[in-house]
Structure formats: structure tokens, C-alpha cells
């Protein structure tokens, strides 16, 4: 292994409207080493890698490849610098074959400007042998399972003999066996002199595979850990800064009421199997687990967005069948989605219109909207939630993430829900507004609303929830009370270790 750095990034700063994604960050990588990059959601890992991949340009700082300063303007430049990228979400064309994807924009031609199919196929075969797996060059990528799509992306990247290979959350959708196979491939690449940048939140894997770890937090470089010193505790302590007590409201005095939401035997074919749980009035139940383990599907089925094939959903005394969002809203069930810019807010419209949209019937009489009533109600919400804006007519697209989230909350509060599901309550929300959001949720429970929270932020899950349900591969693997929750127990449950599910009185 070379001791010289092939890649050096120094004083990297990147700003987006409203937030500084990276601030004076440093990062480097040698050929033949595996350098892991860790940090919470929003720490800046993706942004840093996007800069390397040519999808973003730093506002300040330098990037040096093999000693030379470079400006990576677009993916092609990145590629010519010897950087390969294997993305978190499969970045392939589903309507083309494996071979076509691997060689897209880099096709091999035989003499007369005609594609040399033979040569390309044989190169795919060589790759198969070299890395020890079996990709069918003529298989359509759209028909492949995620693990194989990832292999295709790896093959495409490796085919160009990169010096640096970036792997973004490579094991997110892999089974244990597939992870093992991936690690073997990484070893092979390492031995052949490729430097690997490994981004992951699965700390166990990092301990197994990394030579070095860099920790980012809130867009800043926190520090590095050398092999031999890499432990989970050390990584976590560097990733987290705040003690739990600071930002999460104290809920020791909260009293729970009767059952407000009851799910029994909920089944969605291919996604979840036999899910059962309940939520009481004034209680906050958190659903956690790694991405795509079924939590979101459950929540969407409960609200009627996705159909379910078996089981019952009962909210505030009313039983619901598959589908029927309007019915659920009438039944006082609310849902704040995780994607407020995509399917939450109507960005081109004002705060007022966004806030009242789900409860217009309450403000209408004989088919006409009563403007005065509407404005009054929205005004109250804006004060209650402390939404900072020039007026209720301000376009929501121009609000900060935190204020946008509050407008979403305002919308659902105007429905006067008895059960409220909040998906990713603080995604893209800065720290200051986060505290505010937690307070709001706490206040909701004081008036008897039953709250379900979904979050991929482990610490938030532990801080906010009275009770935590961990999901793995479509089933609940653990039910953990607030006082018994540790990151260790949550991570274990998230990785499939089934723990005792509490009995309730």
C-alpha cells in the first residue's frame, strides 16, 4: 500500500440556499486502502462525494489528484480523473441490458463504426471471472434484483480501471451473503491498487473492512480514526455531539389514555407480514429500522396510500379498509409525509392555502370558502407553531426547511387529528427548528393526540419516542421502551436480531 495520498481534498466548503452543507472539510485517500466516511444523515457525506463525482462544485477549497489540482466540472471529468462511482440508488438504465449499461457512452467499436458486441461481451465475462461473480451480459437491468444491479454498476466503474472507487451505502439492500461477496470484491480491488472510499452507516461493517475512518458532523470534519482504533463507540461519540437531554422534551410526567390506533395482522405482499401494534392517546410510538424494511409501507397502508391484503386498521374507533384517504382524514387521522417538497407542500402556493387545504370543508359554507374564518385559523396556527414568515401569503417555496415543516404540521393540525403520523419529522430541518418541532410534538401529546413517528435518525428515535418498534425485513423485531433503549439494542434489532416483544397490561 502506497503511503502517498492519491486524492487530497482540502478546505472544502459548499453552500446551498439556506444551509451550509460542508464547511472547511478535509478528506484524502491512498491507492490500495479502504477509507470509510461516516456521519449522521445530513452530515455532508453525499455532498462531498458529489463534488468528487462532478455533480457539484465546491465554493471554496481544492481537490488534488496525484498531486495535481483539478476542477471536476462534470461526470466525464471525474471519470477521466480516474474516479469511479457506485451510487446508493442504482444509477442504471432499466431498459438496457447489463452489457449496454456497462458500456454506455463508452462503447467499443469494430472497424467500420459498428459496435463490437463480441468484444464487449467477452470483457464482461472477464470481469465476472476477475471479481468472482456471474453477470449475464444480456439480462435486462430492469429485471435484475438490487444486488445484481449494484454489481453491474461496480462492473461499469471497474471496467475503466479507476484509481479511486466511491461506494455509497453499498450494503443497504444486500443480504448477509451478498455483503460477504461484496467484501471479497473489495479485497480484490484493494490488492490491485484501487483506493476505495466507503460510505456507510453500518458501523459493524466499517470495523470489518476499513483501514481508516473519517467522521463528519453537521458539515464539519470531526476527525479520523486509524485501523486498530476503530470501534463503534468511538465513531458514535464523534458523530454525535449533543447529549440526549438537551433537545428532547422531558416526558416523564405524561399520562397515556385509551387506545387510539390499533393495527392487527397487517400484511402487504412482498413488503410486510402480520404487523400488529397499538398507540395510546398521548403516546409517541417510534418506528425504526434500516431503509426499506417495511416501516414506511406500514404507515402508508395505515393512511390508505397503499393497499394491504390482510389485517385491520382501527383509528379513533373507526375501522378502515384498504384505500380511502379522504375517509381517514374525516376520521381524524393525519399524515405528514417525509417528502414535503415532493408530495407534501404545494410549493407555488401560499402558507395559508397550504395550511387549509386538508380542512377546507370546515371553512366552507354552501360551496364557498369563508376567507375570514380561514385566515383566522391559519393565523392561530402560525402563532402556535411560531412559523417565521412575512405573512401567511408568502409562497412556501421561499421558506426555510424548518418553517416548511411547520406549515405541514399546521395543515394536519387544522384537521384536528386524534392520531397523527409524522414521517421524518426533522429531515432537512436545521438544529434550532428541530428543538421547536420536538416541543410541538410534545404539546400535541398533552392534548391527547396519539403520535406515530418514523425516522431514520437513531438518536432522534431514542430521544422522542415513548416506545420504539424496530423493523427488519417486513417484521417487527423488537419493541423497546424509552428507558430501555440503547443504540446497541436498536442496531441489533435493525439487523434482524429478534428481541422480546413486551407484554402490555
Amino acid at each position, binding site marked *: 500500500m502506497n503511503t502517498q495520498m492519491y486524492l487530497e481534498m482540502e478546505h472544502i466548503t459548499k453552500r446551498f440556499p439556506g444551509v451550509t452543507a460542508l464547511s472547511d472539510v478535509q478528506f484524502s485517500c491512498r491507492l490500495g486502502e479502504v477509507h470509510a466516511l461516516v456521519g449522521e444523515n445530513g452530515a455532508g457525506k453525499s455532498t462531498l462525494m458529489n463534488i468528487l463525482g462532478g455533480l457539484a462544485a465546491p465554493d471554496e477549497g481544492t481537490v488534488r489528484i496525484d498531486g495535481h489540482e483539478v476542477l471536476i466540472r462534470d461526470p466525464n471529468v471525474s471519470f477521466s480523473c480516474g474516479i469511479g462511482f457506485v451510487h446508493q440508488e442504482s444509477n442504471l438504465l432499466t431498459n438496457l441490458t447489463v452489457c449496454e449499461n456497462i458500456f454506455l457512452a463508452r462503447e467499443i467499436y469494430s472497424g467500420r463504426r459498428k459496435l463490437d458486441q463480441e468484444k464487449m461481451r467477452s470483457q464482461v465475462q472477464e470481469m465476472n471471472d476477475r471479481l468472482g461473480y456471474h453477470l449475464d451480459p444480456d439480462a435486462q437491468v430492469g429485471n435484475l434484483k438490487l444486488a445484481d444491479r449494484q454489481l453491474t454498476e461496480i462492473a461499469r466503474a471497474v471496467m475503466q480501471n479507476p484509481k479511486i472507487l466511491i461506494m455509497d451505502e453499498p450494503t443497504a439492500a444486500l443480504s448477509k451473503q451478498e455483503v460477504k461477496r461484496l467484501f471479497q470484491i473489495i479485497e480484490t480491488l484493494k490488492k490491485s491498487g484501487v483506493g476505495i472510499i466507503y460510505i456507510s452507516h453500518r458501523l459493524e461493517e466499517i470495523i470489518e473492512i476499513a483501514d481508516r475512518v473519517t467522521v463528519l458532523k453537521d458539515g464539519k470534519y470531526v476527525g479520523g480514526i486509524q485501523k486498530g482504533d476503530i470501534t463503534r463507540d468511538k465513531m458514535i461519540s464523534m458523530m454525535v455531539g449533543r447529549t440526549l437531554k438537551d433537545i428532547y422534551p422531558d416526558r416523564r410526567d405524561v399520562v397515556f389514555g385509551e387506545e387510539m390506533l390499533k393495527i392487527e395482522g397487517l400484511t402487504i405482499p412482498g413488503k410486510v407480514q402480520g404487523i400488529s401494534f397499538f398507540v395510546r392517546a398521548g403516546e409517541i410510538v417510534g418506528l425504526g429500522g434500516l431503509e426499506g424494511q417495511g416501516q414506511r409501507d406500514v404507515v402508508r397502508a395505515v393512511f390508505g*396510500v397503499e393497499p394491504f391484503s390482510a389485517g385491520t386498521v382501527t383509528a379513533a374507533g373507526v375501522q378502515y379498509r384498504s384505500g380511502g384517504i379522504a375517509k381517514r382524514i374525516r376520521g381524524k387521522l393525519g399524515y405528514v409525509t417525509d417528502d414535503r417538497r415532493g408530495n407534501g407542500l404545494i410549493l407555488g402556493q401560499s402558507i395559508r392555502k397550504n395550511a387549509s387545504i386538508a380542512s377546507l370543508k370546515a371553512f366552507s359554507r354552501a360551496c364557498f370558502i369563508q376567507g375570514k374564518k380561514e385566515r383566522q385559523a391559519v393565523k392561530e396556527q402560525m402563532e402556535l407553531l411560531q412559523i417565521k414568515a412575512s405573512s401567511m401569503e408568502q409562497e412556501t417555496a421561499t421558506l426555510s426547511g424548518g418553517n416548511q415543516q411547520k406549515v405541514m404540521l399546521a395543515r394536519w393540525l387544522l384537521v384536528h387529528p386524534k392520531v397523527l403520523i409524522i414521517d421524518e419529522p426533522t429531515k432537512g430541518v436545521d438544529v434550532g427548528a428541530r428543538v421547536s418541532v420536538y416541543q410541538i410534538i410534545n404539546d400535541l401529546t398533552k392534548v391527547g393526540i396519539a403520535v406515530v413517528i418514523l425516522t431514520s435518525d437513531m438518536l432522534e428515535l431514542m430521544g422522542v419516542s415513548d416506545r420504539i418498534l424496530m423493523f427488519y425485513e417486513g417484521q417487527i423485531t423488537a419493541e423497546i421502551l424509552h428507558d430501555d433503549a440503547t443504540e446497541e439494542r436498536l442496531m441489533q434489532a435493525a439487523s434482524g436480531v429478534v428481541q422480546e416483544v413486551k407484554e402490555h397490561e
Partner: protein
Amino acid sequence: MQESDLKSRKISQGSRQCLILLLSITCLFVLQAVLRPGSVTLAQGMNISRQASTLGIVVLGQTLVILTGGIDLSVGSIVTITNVFAVSYMKGQDENFFTAVLVCAGIGLAAGAVNAIGVLKLKIAPFVMTLCTSTMLQGIYLVYTGGSPSGNVSPSLKQIGNGLCAGVIPYPTLIWTALAVLLWIALSYTPFGRYTYAVGENPDAAGLCGISVDRIKISAYLLSSLFAVAAGLLASGYIGTTSLSLGNDYITNSLAVVLIGGNSIEGGKGGVWGGFLGAFLLMLLFALLTMVHVGQAGKLVIQGVIIFAVVFGQRYGLGRKG
């Protein structure tokens, strides 16, 4: 502060477009007065508004469909088929007036329903589906008339199409204005209006708020067809007889006007009055062009360029702000 700047700009964007249109209309009148002194009179203006009314009514329907994120390319054929069946049932008499109107309305509703089913249930792209419907309607009226239609409308329809209310305002203009006001009230002051804008800008979000996206879109297509029928009836009244090319220019014209009126082709943005003024502006422009002897060819080229330029301008404007 920057944010309040944005706010005040945003509020008047719709009215700003109307102001631009009013300004353009004034400029054209001025130009007309210069080119043909003495030709700018109230009567002439009213006449233009009569010409614009049938287009304007179709534009109302098209505006609604485009607001919800769709497009209706069947309006031209609906106008023509309305004319064919109106003439056929009226046979130049007043007795069958209401039967004829009902028949035409029925056909319009059927067309709108076909559009809606195709777009919503069969998930066919709106422009394809409505083009399909347009072709099928064309086939139907061609078969029905054998290619050579004949007949006249009821005298009362002719009166409505050509007459003046109180000796000044053409009936079609009155009807157009009334319909515009109704639609404007619906869009601005009812839940239906709010839902329409929501569905157009972000159908996923709208669905999650309990809004029946399908119902809003179906209403839009049905109303668009009905408006086209109304326009067809008025147009038939105006010419008094039948013509297979009656609906010819409505597709491109209505699209051009909706876009000139400040509506976004993707939906969710715009309103009634932009299209209202836009229809008048377009007709005034065409009248002017005819006055200076610009032929059909020139008119078509100008139309095409306008459509492109307006959408391009919208994009460019948005890009600069954001």
C-alpha cells in the same frame, strides 16, 4: 427584505399579465387607428368581441383542463360536430331548438367522458387521448354527413349569434363574459377551485390531502367539452348554417390564448382573466392582419411563433427568478 419583495411580486404576477395584455390591446388599437384612421369604433370593438367570444368560451374550458395538468385537443372537433348535429336537428326551425341543444350537450358530455376515461382509467397521455377522441369525432361527423353537410340553424340561434343586446353588446359577448365570471368565482372562492390548482401543481400532495384527483380531472374534461359545445352553438348561430371546417383553428388558437393569458402549460398556475383578455387580443391581432392584407399563411406563422415565444418567455422568466 428579499422575501417580502418576492411576495409582492408574486401576488401581482397574475394581474401583471393582465396589465400586459391590456397594454398590448391598447397598442394594437392605436396601431389600427394609425393605419386606418376612423376604423376604431365601439361597434367595431364589439364586433371583435363577438368574434372572440366563441374562442373565449373554448379557452375557458381549455384553461380548466390545463390548470389540472392536462390538455384538450378535441375541442375543435367538438365545435364542428356540434354544428353538424345542431343544424341537422334544428332544420332551420325553432321548434327543435331545445332538442338540438340537448343532443349536442349529450355528445359533448360523451366526448368529455371518453377523454376522462382514457386519461384517468387507461392512463393514456392527455394529448394522445384527446387527439384520438378528436379523430373519432371527425369520423363520426364525416360518416353522418357523408362529407357534404347541409342545413340551417334555428332563427333564434341565428338571432343570438348575430344580435345585439340593448343595441350595443353582442349576445355572444354577454354569454362569454357571464361564463368567465362564473368560472372565476368557482376557481377563486370555492374548494373546487383550490383543489383544481392543487391537483395541477402537485397531484401527489393533493391526493394525500384527501382530494379526489380523479374527480377534479374528470370535471375539467367534462366542462371543457361542454364549453366547446356552447362555443359551437354560438358559432353555428353566427354563420347560420353548417361548415366542416368550423372547428379548425380552435385547438391551436385556444392553446395559444391560454398560454398568452399567463397559464403554465404544466398546470397549477394561471387564471380566467388572462385567457379572457388574450382571446380578445388574438382576434384583434387577426383583424389587424387582415386589414393589412396578411393572408392565412402569415396568420399561421405568427400564431406558431407566438405560442413558442410565450412558453419560452415563461420559462425564461421563471429561471431568472429562481
